[in-house]
């Protein structure tokens, strides 16, 4: 039966459609950012690799990054990036995890009331301040501990340790979420079997939260790899392939900042090189983020 009553006939609400379309376009805009990032990194990288001075194999395997003499091996930069990030993880993961365990399993409400804001404040401090901290506190500390001639004024250890402090609040907060979302019943079961609190925590709760925790650690690693200002200030300028964390070595991000901060002319190899390195950085961090998301999705499925 057709509706004859004109009051119920569908009105064409023109402006409603306009609004919806505009909102949709706004939402699409974020897609445009991703496309923009990909296009620009790939295009400039292509220009970089098509430069006669550069070859892809040399880029991937070369142990020297010296644009002045046309040496574009990115291993020294990658090595420094991994050095700082690994040092950061060595500090940030255990401490962050222990803080999370303390918050989730041990802390009284009053302690939580003190600790949560401390973590929030730490997380809200701009990274440049951490860079300053590395330069004015951590480096002098390391030098007085290990000797002025052992520890250089700029070094990856100082930068790495401070990045560790920088990612600590993020690790602690996310790890606490993962630990807290382990069902209470599992803890009760462990206690009822005669487990102590620490046995329950380490042998039941932490294993049960493992996927959530790994997701957290990967995200923290990605954050450490992309961290810029701390390494720009404290790790040193000039790419150097060294395994010694007390020596200066420039990371990928440090190099990008130094080159772009100077007067670099468009379409030069230098200019293109920072995009190629940006592409490398993006691929690494994107992979880590993706794996992290996959793992945390699995984790959420486990407890639903």
């Amino acid at each position: 039966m057709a509706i004859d009553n004109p009051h119920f006939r569908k009105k064409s609400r023109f402006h409603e459609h306009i609004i919806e379309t505009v909102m949709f376009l706004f939402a699409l805009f974020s897609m445009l950012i991703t496309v923009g990032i990909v296009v620009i990194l790939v295009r400039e990288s292509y220009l970089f690799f098509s430069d006669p001075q550069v070859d892809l194999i040399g880029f991937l395997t070369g142990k020297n990054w010296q644009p002045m003499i046309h040496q574009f091996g990115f291993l020294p930069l990658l090595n420094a990036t991994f050095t700082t990030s690994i040092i950061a993880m060595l500090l940030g993961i255990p401490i962050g995890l222990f803080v999370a365990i303390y918050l989730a399993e041990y802390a009284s409400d009053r302690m939580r009331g003190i600790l949560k804001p401390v973590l929030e404040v730490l997380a809200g401090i701009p990274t440049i301040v951490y860079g300053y901290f590395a330069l004015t506190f951590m480096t002098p500390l390391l030098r007085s501990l290990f000797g002025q001639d052992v520890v250089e004024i700029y070094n990856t250890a100082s930068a790495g340790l401070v990045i560790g402090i920088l990612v600590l609040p993020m690790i602690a907060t996310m790890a606490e979420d993962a630990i807290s979302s382990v069902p209470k019943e599992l803890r009760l079961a462990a206690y009822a079997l005669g487990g102590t609190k620490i046995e329950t925590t380490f042998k039941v709760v932490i294993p049960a939260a493992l996927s959530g925790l790994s997701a957290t650690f990967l995200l923290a690693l990605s954050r450490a790899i992309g961290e810029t200002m701390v390494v720009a200030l404290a790790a040193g300028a000039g790419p150097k392939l060294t395994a010694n964390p007390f020596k200066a070595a420039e990371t990928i991000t440090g190099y990008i900042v130094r080159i772009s901060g100077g007067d670099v002319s468009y379409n030069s190899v230098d200019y293109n090189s920072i995009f190629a390195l940006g592409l490398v950085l993006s691929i690494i961090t994107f992979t880590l983020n993706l794996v992290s998301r996959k793992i945390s999705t699995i984790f959420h499925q486990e407890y639903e």
Partner: protein
Amino acid sequence: MNKTSLAESLPPVFQEKSKVEPTKTIIQLDDVNINYGSFTAVKHASMEIYEHKVTAFIGPSGCGKSTVLRSINRMNDLIRGATLDGRVLFNGEDLYAKDVDPVLIRRRIGMVFQKPNPFPKSIYENIAWGARVNGYRGDYDELVETSLRSAALWDEVKDKLKQNALRLSGGQQQRLCIARTIAVQPEVILMDEPASALDPIATSRIEELILELKKDYTIVIVTHNMGQASRVSDYTAFFMVDQNRTGYLQEYEETEQLFLNPIHKKTEEYISGKFG
């Protein structure tokens, strides 16, 4: 050790009609009051629980039967603000004495929960976990097998011991939890509505299992299901709640006695389903 015989500790009426073969007292509650902060959850609970028997706790919601159950292996300690006065004796020893470690008690008085809660580990690891933390030195394969056999689960899982326990059905998970409890070789098993989350078939399997287990263990079971209490238990304790929402022990009898000839009117009303 409490050497009082059952005959002496029972009221005269009970003795005459008793059909249950008497055994010794394993747990004794002596004027137990349990508080959560300023709220009194249970008051003046006194009773004796006998070895190798099944004792059921029944009563309306909020009557404190689970609270009393948890006080027997000190699981209440894990709830913030929970305190207990009075005495809970286990083989004559006060479980709440100063130097008693609740961790050691819980190995000897195990617990099975309402919702099956296996660890997200393999079936094998679920069984081995408790034994491992308690320093078991025997053969683990053997322990896993005997425990699973005792819980009537062995035949169903013997080919997939490495499989994650969460992939078992609800009823299987609950029997795994029972097997896990057995593996640390307790003397008493506390069960907090162990079948309430299960379907009828799984429930009846758990009930059969309980009857089987009482040969080796003393079992205390909280249940909402009157039929279940009458089917599996030798003794039944009926808890009530007063106007302050404080629970108390109304009547404690041999099960048949309590269901056929309840002394108190409240008991009769409850078992005949007038409230609950």
